[in-house]
């Protein structure tokens, strides 16, 4: 074949090797194989899905932590209530002793009254400005004194339980309705009020009955705590799962668009070698013409 002018071929070759050099350089400097969508459209589309999954996992994680803190505060409030009820039972047993004088019972009644107030305070406890035991009516104080009520207190909240999503198909209750814990199964506040009334009246029988009612309430609150505790342990294991998921997703993303640095570095030095070879060849061939030898 007659070769008229090698310049065009040389220019094309130099351009090609410059292109692969710049691609290799870009991959090393960004640590990414896919720098624009067209580098790998399939990986880019999968990346969109993977990033959306990551955003979900991140929000599940943050929900998980929020809910965990909220349930722990509910749990600690209930733990105080349990302690208070145990004290009330002890006091009720003391008060049921027929040898006590009325003034002694009066003193005990005042102590039980104090316990009642502390239980009500726990039932009205707040987490981050919201009432914990008010159902979804988190802005309303759930238990307020009301003389017309037989127990002396009314529940102002509702029975709605909010669910928070902490996984693709996992939701946990983020609040506890006050009526469920304190009035539905056994009336905690009512039993304490009854004990105070019984102590004040001095009837040993009534005191005994009231103290028994408090034991029932204690058992009931204990059961409610178990369900909160199981939610807490579920959240803890969900937290572990979510952090694993987050690691899986980020390694998936690296695999999709990232580049192995060792490979990239090897590619770069290969591209460098090729490029200098092409340039050296051009430098050898281009300046030589017959005219050099005709002088």
């Amino acid at each position, binding site marked *: 074949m007659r070769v008229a002018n090698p310049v065009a071929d040389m220019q094309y070759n130099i351009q090609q090797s410059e292109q692969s050099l710049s691609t290799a350089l870009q991959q090393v400097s960004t640590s990414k194989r896919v720098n*624009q969508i067209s580098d790998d459209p399939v990986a880019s589309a999968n990346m*969109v899905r993977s990033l959306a999954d990551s955003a979900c996992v991140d*929000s599940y994680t943050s929900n998980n932590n929020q809910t965990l803190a909220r349930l722990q505060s509910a749990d600690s409030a209930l733990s105080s209530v349990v302690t208070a009820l145990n004290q009330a039972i002890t006091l009720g047993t003391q008060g049921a002793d027929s040898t006590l004088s009325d003034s002694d019972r009066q003193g005990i009644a005042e102590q039980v009254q104090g316990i009642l107030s502390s239980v009500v305070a726990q039932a009205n406890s707040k987490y*981050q400005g919201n009432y914990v035991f008010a159902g979804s009516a988190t802005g309303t104080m759930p238990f307020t004194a009301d003389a017309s009520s037989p127990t002396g207190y009314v529940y102002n909240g509702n029975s709605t339980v909010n669910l928070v999503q902490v996984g693709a198909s996992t939701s946990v209750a983020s609040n506890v309705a006050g009526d469920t814990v304190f009035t539905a199964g056994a009336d905690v506040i009512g039993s304490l009020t009854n004990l105070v009334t019984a102590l004040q009246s001095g009837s040993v029988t009534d005191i005994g009955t009231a103290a028994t009612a408090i034991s029932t309430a204690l058992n009931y609150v204990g059961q409610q705590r178990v369900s909160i505790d199981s939610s807490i342990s579920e959240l803890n294991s969900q937290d572990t799962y979510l952090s694993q998921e987050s690691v899986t997703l980020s390694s998936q993303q690296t695999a999709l668009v990232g580049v192995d640095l060792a490979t990239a570095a090897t590619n770069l030095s290969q591209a460098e070698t090729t490029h200098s070879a092409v340039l050296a060849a051009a430098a050898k061939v281009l300046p030589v013409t017959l005219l050099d030898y005709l002088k």
Partner: protein
Amino acid sequence: MSLNASLSIAVQSLLADSGALQATNNNIANANTVGYTRETVVLQESDPSMQGDLSVGQGVVLQGFQSVRSEVLQRQIEVQTQQQSAADAQVSSLSEIEPVFTTSTQDIGTQMSALFTSISSLSTDPTSSSLRQGVISAGQNLVTAFHSASSALTAQQTGLNTQVTQDVSQINQLAQQIAALNPQLAAMKQSGQDGGTLQDKQDQLVLSLSKLTSVSITQTDTGETISTGNGTPLVVGANSYALQTSMGTNGMQDVKDSAGTDITSTLSGGDLGGTIQTRDQAIAGLQSQLDTLASQFGAAFNAAQAQGYTQSGSAGGDFFTLPSGVAGAANSIALASTDPASIAASSDGSAGSDGNLSNLSAVQSTALPSGQTPTDTYAGLVYQVGSLTANATAESTATAASLLQLNDQLSSLSGVSIDEESTNLIRYQQAYEAAARVVSTISSMFDVAMSMGTNAAS
């Protein structure tokens, strides 16, 4: 044979050699001229004369110059050129769209995720005004992302409109220039002459035309007849027919032939074909999918919103304002209310309920009427943008390689080789020197003949 006859042979060969030197000289001069086809000198033996039984050679005749060209290769190069410029036109405009769909802090996918993240966070504390404000801001950001993607596509189409107008006016200019050369070339051909540099000039013009659109070429007695790929005539003999552009009802520049018939959709190849293809198919397709996504996503979100109650306990209203039709939805989608309380988080009307947030979150994982979840729909859009660009780039690279090969072939045939011309230069110079020596030899022979009598007398 007379000395006079020998002298005239020597003169012919001087003429022939200086003609050959001229061709070589012109070849060297145009060694780097784009589109130049090397010329060779056509030499022929003169008819011999009969002297008795002897046939005696009568020297050489310079017949003319012949360009070494291949019309087949030239046509192939034209076809590849129009394919490459079509691919390049697509690459350049699509690669400008790519960044809009690349994952960043502002792309639609990221903002969509951010909206659902903010809704999910709100479920931990439905009364928190800062979390509610977060949902509103995320909604606003998503709206902005839709707007900027949509306007980037529109801006690209507007740019391509200008390109269409420019391409058409260039096509018209080239057609005029080609038509002007036709009569001269036809006359030269009729007289049996080679088109030479005029043909080179016309080939270059046709190649430039191929960069703009695909053309078909027929050789006729009146020169080259050129029409667009779909058969609209551009050049017939000495006449050229101008294409026109006019603004269509859809805001796009339409291309019309000289009779006023709309030929926009039939044009293919070249920068004009690539531009129209990108403008009317690739980008228009992406735009309508984007509109569908915005419209269906907005409607699904509004429907979820309608199932709940706002913070103040009233029934949930629209979150997004959408146009009545799908077209233009991505550009005109907006937030219906910027009041954080308007988010219908509650399922029972109480301010602290988060029951309806699960309905709002479910929009993310529920298929839209188009058949896929919003995230998957968007991922599909990203894939399309990427593969359109990647395909066009691959085509451009492939045609560049085959074009290089064709040009190599053409240059192998028609290109000027300096080494070859240098040897020719020496060859013709030596022949010229030899012919000149013949002249001086004959001259001294004349002297000898003239002085024959003189010497005898003295």
